[in-house]
């Protein structure tokens, strides 16, 4: 009787144990925490995204060895989380078919980090560009007029 009971109890418990083990094997959990990431977007002069361009990131404490290598997405974007223990200027180089740029991103005081947009080159609006182009062209035209004047 005792033997029968033991077998019966074993038959009931064994599947439960097995089931429980399976749950642990396929179990997964997701943790999250808020962090500050840096998003870069690389574009050509006319605003066309540099899709699949190569990115090399240098940490402030070692500018000779790349901290990370990656590629931009179809929109020329890439996001990375700088190491929390390293403050300073993070250099990001972007390159594609001989074109590219380098930007130095200052990272410090992470608690009070605000969303800000930094560009590698100062961005002029179309009107400013037009004025600059017209002024330069006028300079060239003025030179032409000066040298083509009639000598008295």
């Amino acid at each position, binding site marked *: 009787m005792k033997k029968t009971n033991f077998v019966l109890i074993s038959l009931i418990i064994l599947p439960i144990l097995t089931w429980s083990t399976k749950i642990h094997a396929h179990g997964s959990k997701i943790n999250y925490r808020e962090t500050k990431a840096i998003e870069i977007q690389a574009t050509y002069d006319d605003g*066309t995204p540099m899709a699949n361009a190569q990115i090399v990131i240098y940490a402030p404490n070692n500018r000779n060895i790349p901290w990370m290598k990656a590629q931009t997405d179809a929109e020329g974007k890439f996001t990375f989380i700088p190491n929390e223990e390293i403050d300073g200027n993070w250099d990001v180089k972007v*390159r594609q078919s001989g074109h590219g*740029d380098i930007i130095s991103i200052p990272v410090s005081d992470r608690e009070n980090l605000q969303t800000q947009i930094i560009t590698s080159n100062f961005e002029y609006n179309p009107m400013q560009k037009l004025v600059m182009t017209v002024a330069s062209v006028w300079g060239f035209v003025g030179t032409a007029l000066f040298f083509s004047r009639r000598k008295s």
Partner: protein
Amino acid sequence: MHVPDGILPPAVAISGYGISGGITWYCLKQIEKQNNPQAQIPRSSLLTAAFFVASSIHIPIPPISIHLILNGLVGALLGYYAFPAILIGLFFQAVMFGHGGLSTLGINGIIMGVPALFAGYLFRFRYLFKTNKKMLQNVLVFAIGCGTLLISAALFTTIVLTNISPDFNSELERNAIFISLFAYSIQAIIEGSITVAIISFLERVKPQLLEGN
């Protein structure tokens, strides 16, 4: 096709300045030999303006975006004046719009200026064709406009390919450059056509502008 700052090692950038300086000196010596060196300055100045503005005309050819250079036209019309004119145009492009770079000004001058000098030499051969054979003249002018751009693209590709930083994946970069060569071929055809259109127009309206390069 402008090499920006930070792409080339300092030794290459400095060598570019040295070679560009030598070519400029040679061009100025040749200009000095002319009867009236100042006579061509108005034309050079206007074409420098055209070269400067042309770079802001963008043509998107995926995956990259190209912009007009017109160094074939500048070379054909200016001869020895073309090299200093292109250097000045490149300087303004770099300072005003960050197009190209100041450290790579010499290298960019070689990439765009040297083919322009060849264009100037070739353009003198158009007189070999009889005036009634306009078609042959136009073919030569197209070849000048197209070929100059292709030589520039070849120089750009060679300089960039031989100076890929070890931090970048050279195979990925090489593939990207070879893809961009397709876009440069289309640009060469566009520039060849523009050169033919402008030279033909000047030939009808003011043929004296085509003389004395």
